[in-house]
């Protein structure tokens, strides 16, 4: 199987999902488990993780009925809870022993949130799947492949790299935007109008991206975030490149899968893949559910016509033409076809209601129309955007390491990762702790239900003399590390003020 020995494959993370409405009679406890990673863990161990979780959910409800257990901090492990849907819980158990294992609980929880919201986008509510087939086989299969594919994004060698202190100047679950000039914005707008006219009378949505950055969209914030997250993971040029390189380096390739079953086959070998090769949970093996694995790696590629294609959604019955991907919109719960066109750094995603297009024929026609009417425009837009684009260090501000978050719009901007790595571990850990404090202040404000957002300003001179700054103003957050700060608090305050004036339109300035 290619598995290394049990000893050196000690899992640093456990991840499970369980349904409290199932398996409530003695002997039926296994029924609760919808997903468990690693799947080869003895059932007794799986049950004990879920038993503890369930016990603490019940226990904490005694005091906190509206917000039961969110986290268990133990000496060696941290258990992060997230109720994804009523009575359906996800719990992530991470080990603390690794020196890299310093994190914000909120950052870990955002991984759970991301899993769920992406799952919803492709498969709808988990509860609906549970109800659809009460034996649980259907939902388990879907979750299994989905989450395993998801986790593979985090795997580095044999380990999973979860967001830790090195990501303290990142905000999971947010969009990163491209700043565009007025002229480019007008170009983009006219492109959007053009695309809409191609679709015709039907209600459609579009999302324009440049590299891994969002340029414009008319989707709701939640749908934007979900689609953006997916695009960055699988669709953008960088994601495609990543997929392709994984593809070429994989020892085992399987591109000729024209059936649903084929879609389940493995394309590259990693620790995660090894699990479901060797430890496929039996219920999944028994049933041959029609599975779609939207997060499967190396499955997207750019076609000759500029549209991105994949066979993840299977192929037409009597042809080799892949079926068009579909997603669910969060608010309207409407099923949409997903069309993605790419030209160099530019990716344009178009969502068209499934109900309004007559099958594959309609899709082909639509694509044809777009190529005929809009491809030139897209070329032009791409040119404009790349001319204004300052490269990966475009948003670097020298002397500052920062993160800006606009919570209302799910938008963030940060110092480029390459610049953040110049900070010492000490500064990054200190910032993580500071952010944890701010997280709890935010949570407190939420629970106090005062309705108003917390405004706060914290400025810390750490032991290593760097300044750590956190500012919360009207739902906007600014975190900064000034690695070479001078002695005085006034200097740090002044530096913050300047940053706010120049880069945040004074959002964090006093008065």
């Amino acid at each position: 199987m290619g598995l290394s020995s049990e000893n050196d494959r000690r899992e640093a993370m456990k991840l499970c999902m369980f349904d409290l409405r199932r398996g409530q009679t003695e002997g039926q406890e296994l029924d609760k488990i919808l997903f468990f990673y690693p799947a080869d863990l003895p059932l007794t161990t799986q049950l004990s993780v879920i038993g503890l979780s369930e016990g603490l959910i019940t226990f904490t409800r005694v005091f906190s009925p509206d917000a039961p257990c969110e986290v268990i901090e133990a000496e060696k492990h941290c258990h992060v809870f997230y109720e994804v849907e009523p009575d359906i819980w996800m719990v992530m158990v991470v080990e603390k022993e690794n020196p890299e294992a310093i994190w914000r609980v909120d950052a870990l929880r955002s991984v759970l949130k991301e899993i769920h919201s992406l799952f919803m986008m492709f498969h709808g509510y988990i509860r609906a799947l549970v109800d659809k087939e009460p034996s649980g086989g259907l939902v388990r299969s879907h979750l299994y492949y989905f989450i395993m594919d998801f986790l593979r994004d985090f795997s580095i060698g044999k380990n999973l790299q979860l967001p830790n202190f090195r990501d303290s100047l990142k905000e999971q679950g947010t969009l990163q935007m491209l700043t565009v000039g007025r002229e480019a914005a007008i170009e983009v707008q006219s492109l959007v109008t053009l695309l809409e006219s191609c679709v015709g009378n039907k209600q459609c949505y579009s999302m324009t991206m440049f590299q891994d950055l969002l340029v414009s969209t008319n989707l709701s914030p939640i749908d934007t975030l979900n689609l953006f997250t997916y695009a960055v993971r699988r669709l953008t040029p960088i994601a495609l490149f990543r997929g392709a390189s994984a593809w070429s380096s994989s020892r085992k390739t399987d591109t000729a899968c024209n059936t649903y079953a084929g879609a389940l086959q493995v394309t590259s070998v990693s620790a995660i893949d090894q699990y479901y090769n060797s430890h496929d949970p039996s219920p999944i093996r028994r049933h041959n559910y029609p599975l779609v694995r939207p997060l499967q790696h190396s499955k997207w590629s750019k076609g000759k016509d500029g549209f991105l294609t994949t066979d993840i959604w299977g192929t037409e019955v009597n042809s080799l033409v892949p079926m068009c991907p579909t997603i669910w919109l969060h608010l309207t719960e409407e099923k949409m076809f997903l069309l993605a066109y790419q030209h160099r750094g530019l990716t344009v995603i178009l969502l068209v209601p499934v109900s309004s297009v007559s099958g594959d024929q309609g899709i082909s026609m639509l694509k044809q129309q777009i190529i005929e009417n809009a491809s030139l425009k897209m070329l032009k837009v791409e040119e404009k955007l790349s001319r204004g684009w300052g490269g990966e260090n475009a948003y670097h501000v020298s002397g500052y390491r920062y993160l800006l978050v606009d919570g209302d719009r799910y938008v963030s901007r940060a110092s480029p990762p390459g610049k953040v790595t110049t900070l010492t571990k000490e500064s990054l850990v200190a910032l993580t702790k500071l952010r944890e404090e701010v997280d709890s202040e935010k949570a407190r404000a939420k629970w106090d239900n005062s309705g108003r957002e917390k405004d706060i300003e914290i400025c810390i001179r750490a032991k290593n003399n760097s300044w750590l700054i956190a500012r919360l103003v009207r739902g906007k957050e600014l975190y900064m590390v000034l690695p070479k700060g001078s002695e005085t608090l006034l200097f740090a305050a002044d530096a913050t003020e300047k940053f706010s004036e120049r880069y945040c339109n004074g959002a964090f300035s006093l008065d």
Partner: protein
Amino acid sequence: MPSDSNSTSSNYSSGRDDENPNSDPNSKPEPQLEPEPEPEPEPEPNKNPHLIDQSLDALENQLASISMSSRSPTVTFEGEEEDDVESREQPKSMNGSFSEEIEAGGDADSLEVGRHFESDSKAESSGVNGENISFTWLDAPEVDEVERPLSPGSSGYAGEMGSTSGGDEIVDDDEDDSDIRGVENDGVLGSNNQSVSGKRHADEDDASVSWRKRKKHFFILSHSGKPIYSRYGDEYKLAGFSATLQAIISFVENGGDRVNLVRAGKHQVVFLVKGPIYLVCISCTEEPYESLKGQLELLYGQMILILTKSVNRCFEKNPKFDMTSLLGGTDAVFSSLIHSLSWNPATFLHAYSCLPLAYATRQAAASILQDVAGSGVLFALLMCKHKVISLVSAQKASLHPDDILLLSNFIMSSESFRTSESFSPICLPRYNPMAFLYAYVHYFDIDTYVVLLTTSSDAFYHLKDCRIRIEIVLSNSNVLSEVQRSLVDGGMRIEDLLVEPTSRAGAVSSHLGQPRPGAGTPGRTADGSIGIGGPAGLWHFVYRSIYLDQYVSSEFSPPINSLRQQKRLYRAYQRLYASMHEKAIGPHKTQFRRDENYVLLCWVTQDFELFAAFDPLADKALAIKVCNRVCQWVKDVENEIFLLGASPFSW
């Protein structure tokens, strides 16, 4: 309120009475308490299969003796030695069983102490029987200090009586109420009024809605899940709940881990495992985990102070051992400690505070304490409420600030100490958690008391002599009246902070660097119309001297008027402290924090830590300037506000 305090006082004493066969005819026989000294002849204690029971009996006796005094409350300070002598001159039965248990792992000192403990328990017991009258006062109604008026601004965290608390039935606010009472209590720490009463809401249990809504629960339980202490509700009714807590802890333990914290919405459940003793806090008070954990440590320390860590042995012999009886009647001690967790900065600063006194006055007190410390006294403390007037330790011995806190809490919350001189075994958990010391306690007046600690169980008369010598010196040198005056004058007031350092020069000789307030001035803090705080919007500060292990906090001034505001500020300091001292990376050097309530500034150096609160609109540059001034001011008056040269924690 007075009626309530009466009942609680009798609660407390009845707890003791239970241990005393003389007051409870149905209690199990307590051989050591029998008038005849040899009802249970055990010449070879080590071979005694009931060794542990014996130890327990001894412990119970200790508890009984804690509240025991050597004379009746009717007697006055002078001239009752004869009675005491009579009562004390009982033969000691030295079987040393407990000491053998204790000494393992201890040093020579602790061995010694352990032996003394055993013998003393006998002596105490004998004393009880020799003088039944010593228990009579326990049931007597409260002495008049309950009604005693407050001394305004008597302590850093004592508020004015102004805003009174609501009733206990306001469940959501009970934490505030109780804390308010706690603060009030600080103002009248002498009076064991409602706040330090025993169990509150004893009728509740985990099924009660009101119980579930309490803001801060504390539980102590044994590793077998038996309840030992609960802040609210009756321990026995909470047996099921206690078993649940135990199940959580052991479930995680069985997985090779140890649970520290569970977070749920605004609630935190904090666990602390100390051998066979489990401590749990369930709180929605927004205090950081590190603070709550520190509070559980203190709660454990308080328990150790009463019982020593040797209580662990009971659980080794019998895992199902029921400890509640050992702590019977000590509810007031725990309640009072829990209250102080909401107003006393010593609980998170791990430093003690001194009563402001002229240097010469404090020196006078120190020299007489020093005198007696030479003669077999390990530690001699002269205290006013929870503040130290002076303390002296024998060579090489050192007293941890937490021990001072726990000791003074124990003494002030136990009504028995107040009414007469006492000689009681206590354990200083930071000094030696395994062994008892013996504390001679005597109140000179309603607020001021002396504690003489020794390792010798038969030092009562010697210590009594010492106390008399101390008392003579103190009254001759007017120390006691200076203490009362200091209580009236209060400590440092932010309004008196002068921004220009030179303008102070002439005033240094007066009270804390400012002209002594006239007779009418104490009202200044009560009068909301006067103050908007000190310069640059300074509202309050706490200064901790690191090498002295001491802190000073300014008096509360408007606009920090109400007890609620004071507690909020206290919590803000607590968070700031935790943030500055973050374990993995701390301590930070400076912190500036502005929210809707305050501007907080914290400055940590090798010598001191300064916490200052300002108006939320305060100007940064000015605030920094004022902080520098505060530090200078503290340095200017440090020989009045700190005990210098004591360095109790230097080795």
